[in-house]
C-alpha cells in the first residue's frame, strides 16, 4: 500500500478558533477515504489544508506536517501551484466559471498546456464530461454557459473540470449533495472506477454513501479525529460511542 498523502498532528486555526485539533490521517490510492462527522467538525477544513487552499484565507493558520509522496507540502521548495494541480478539489458548493461548458472543462488543460491542438483538447473535454456522467446531457450545448446548468449539473461540471487536469489526488467535498439518485449513483460508480489510479478523499453526510464508496472512514467530532479505520469495521463495530451515535443517526 502506497501512502499518497499523510497528515501528522495537524491543527488548524481561523484566528482564535481551533477548527482541527491534532489530526493524523493517511490517504492512499488503494482505498477511498470517507470523512464523516457533524456539521462544523472540520471536514472541509482538512480538505482545504491538503491542497493549501487555506493559504489565502486571512487569519487561517496550520500546525503539524502534511506530506505528498513523502514531501512536506509546506516546504520552501514546494510550489503551491504545482501542488494544487496534483491535488484536485471539488468544492462543497458548485462553482463553475461564467464561461461556456467547454471552456470550464478545458480551463485546467489549457493553463497547464496538457493538450496539443484542438483535437486533443476536445478529447480531454469529452472524456472528463463522460466520466463525470454529464456528457449526454450537455454534448449538444457545449457553448452554453456553465452557470446556466442546474445545480446538480453544475456539480458534475465541477467534477469534470477537476478530472480534466488529471490530478494524483482528488478531494471531494460533498460532491453529491445537490444530485438526484441517478446522478449520485453515477458519481459513486466513477469513484469506484477511479480508485487505484487516484487517491480519493470524499466528505459526505450520507452514511450509506460512505459505506458504499469508501474502504476507509474517518469520523470527526468537534475538530478531533475520533475514529479512523476500515469502513466495514467502523460501520459494523464502532469503538467510540460518539461514532456509534452518529452513524446510527442519533445526532448530527
Amino acid at each position, binding site marked *: 500500500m502506497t501512502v499518497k498523502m499523510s497528515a501528522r498532528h495537524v491543527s488548524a486555526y481561523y484566528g482564535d478558533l481551533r477548527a482541527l485539533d491534532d489530526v493524523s490521517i493517511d490517504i492512499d490510492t488503494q482505498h477511498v477515504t470517507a470523512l464523516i462527522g457533524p456539521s462544523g467538525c472540520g471536514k472541509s477544513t482538512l480538505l482545504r489544508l491538503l491542497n493549501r487552499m487555506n493559504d489565502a484565507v486571512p487569519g487561517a493558520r496550520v500546525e503539524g506536517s502534511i506530506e505528498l509522496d513523502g514531501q512536506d507540502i509546506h516546504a520552501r521548495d514546494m510550489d503551491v501551484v504545482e501542488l494544487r494541480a496534483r491535488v484536485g478539489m471539488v468544492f462543497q458548493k458548485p*462553482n463553475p466559471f461564467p464561461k461556456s461548458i467547454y471552456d470550464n472543462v478545458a480551463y485546467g488543460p489549457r493553463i497547464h498546456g496538457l493538450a496539443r491542438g484542438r483535437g486533443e483538447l476536445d478529447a480531454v473535454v469529452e472524456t472528463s464530461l463522460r466520466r463525470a456522467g454529464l456528457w449526454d446531457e450537455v454534448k449538444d450545448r457545449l457553448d452554453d454557459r456553465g452557470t446556466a446548468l442546474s445545480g446538480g449539473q453544475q456539480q458534475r461540471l465541477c467534477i469534470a473540470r477537476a478530472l480534466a487536469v488529471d490530478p494524483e489526488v482528488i478531494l471531494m467535498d460533498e460532491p453529491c449533495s445537490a444530485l438526484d439518485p441517478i446522478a449520485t449513483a453515477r458519481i459513486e460508480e466513477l469513484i469506484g472506477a477511479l480508485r487505484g489510479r487516484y487517491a480519493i478523499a470524499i466528505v459526505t453526510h450520507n452514511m450509506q454513501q460512505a459505506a458504499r464508496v469508501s474502504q476507509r472512514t474517518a469520523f470527526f467530532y468537534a475538530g478531533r479525529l475520533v475514529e479512523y479505520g476500515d469502513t466495514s469495521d467502523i460501520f459494523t463495530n464502532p469503538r467510540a460511542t460518539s461514532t456509534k451515535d452518529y452513524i446510527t443517526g442519533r445526532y448530527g
Partner: protein
Amino acid sequence: MKGSTLVILVVGLAVLFWQVARARAYQFGGSGKFGSLPAQHGWFAALWVLLPSLAFLAAWQINAPGMVTDAVLRDPAAAALPPTGLTRASLLAEARALANGTATGAFHGLARDLARRYATVQVRFNWIATAATLGLALSAGFAALAKVHSGFRARSQVERLVTLLLLGASLVAILTTAGILASLFWESGRFFSLVSPGQFLLGTHWSPQSIDPAAPGDSLGSLPLFWGTFFIGAGIAMAVAVPLGLLSAIYLSQYAASTTRRVLKPALEVLAGVPTVVYGYFAALTVAPAVRHLGMALGYADASGESALAAGLVMGIMIVPFISSVSDDSLAAVPSAMREASLALGATPAETVRHVLLPAALPGIAGGIMLAVSRAIGETMIVVMAASGVATLTANPFASTSTVTRQIVDLLTGEQTFDSPKTLAAFALGLALFGVTLCLNLAALGLVRRYRERYD
C-alpha cells in the same frame, strides 16, 4: 420684518404647538395601545405650523423683488426712465440700493425719487409677507390642534408629511437639473438661430476672436475643440489612467499583503483628494516645460508649452484613483468561489486574474472607464491652466491643443455682451458637451447594471 426673523418666529410657533399638542395628547393618554404616541401628535401639529408657512415664505422671497419692481414702475416718476437698456437697469439698481440703505449718495435725481417709492412699496410688501406667514402658521397650527383627539392617527399623518418632505427634497435636485437644462437649451437655441448646427458641429475653423458679423459660423466650427477634448481626455489621459489604475487595483486586491494594502490604499485616496487647481499648476509649471523639452529633443520643432500631452498626462494621474477604485470594486464583486476554483486547478494568481477575474469584472471596469472619460472631458481646471487657447486640429501630442471646457471659460471671461454669437457659442458648446457626457454615463450605467445582474 426680515425673512430670517420670520423664520425664527415660525419655528418658535412650531415648538409651542408641539408642546401644546403633546400636552393634549397626554391628557387623553395617547391613541390606544398601538396608536400614536403623544410626541407624534406634537410632531403633527409642528409640521403643520412649519410646512405651509415656510413654503409660502420661500415662494414669496423668490417673487417679491419682481413684484416690488413692478409696483415701483407703476409710479408716475418711473415714466421718466429710459425704456430699455443698461441705464434703466442701473437706475433701478441704484434706487433699490438707496432704499435699502446699502448706498449713501445718489448720482441721479431720478434714482432718489424712485428710492422713496421703493422704500414705501417695500414696507408695504414686508407687512403683507409677515402677516400672511404668521397667519398661515397660526391657522394651520390651530387646525392641526383641533384634530388632536384620542382616535386621531397622528402617527400615519406624520408619516405622510415626512413622505412629502422627502419627495420635496429629491424634487429640488431634479428641478434644478431641469432648470439648468432649460436655460442651456434656450441659450443654445438663440445661438443656433445665428449659426447652423451643421456648421457649428462640423466646421474645422475655430477663432472666436475674429468673427465676421455677416457669417459668424465660419469661425465657430467646434470640431477642433471636440477633437482636442477627446484627444486629451479620452486618449492621453486614459492611456495613463487605465493601465496604472487597473494594475494597481489588481495588485492591491490580489497580491498585496494586508499591511501593504493598509498603506497604499489611503495613499491613492489622497491622490483623489488633491484639488484640481493644484493638478492644474503642476501641469502648467512642471510637466508642460518638461514635455516641451522632450518634444524639442525628439525633433518636434512645434513642441508647445501648452501641449495636449502635458494636460493629458496630469489628467490621467488625476483619474488613476477613480479607475483603481472602480476596478477594485468590480474585482471584489466577483465571488471568491471563482477565484478558489481557478487556484484549486493549479492556476497562478496572474492566470486567475487574466482568465477568470478580469473577464468577469470587465463590464464593471468598462463602465468605470466610461464614467472616467466623461469626467475627464468635463474637467476644466487642468486644461484652463495647461492647455492652449488656440484650437488646432492635430494629432501631434506635443502641439498646442485646446478643449471645449477651456474655450467655454475663455468665451465667458472678460467684457462681453450676452447676446453676441461669441458668448452664445459657450452655451452651445456646453450643451454639446453635456450631450456627450450624458450618453457616456447612460452607456456606463447600462453596462454596470447588466454586470450586476449576472451575479444576483
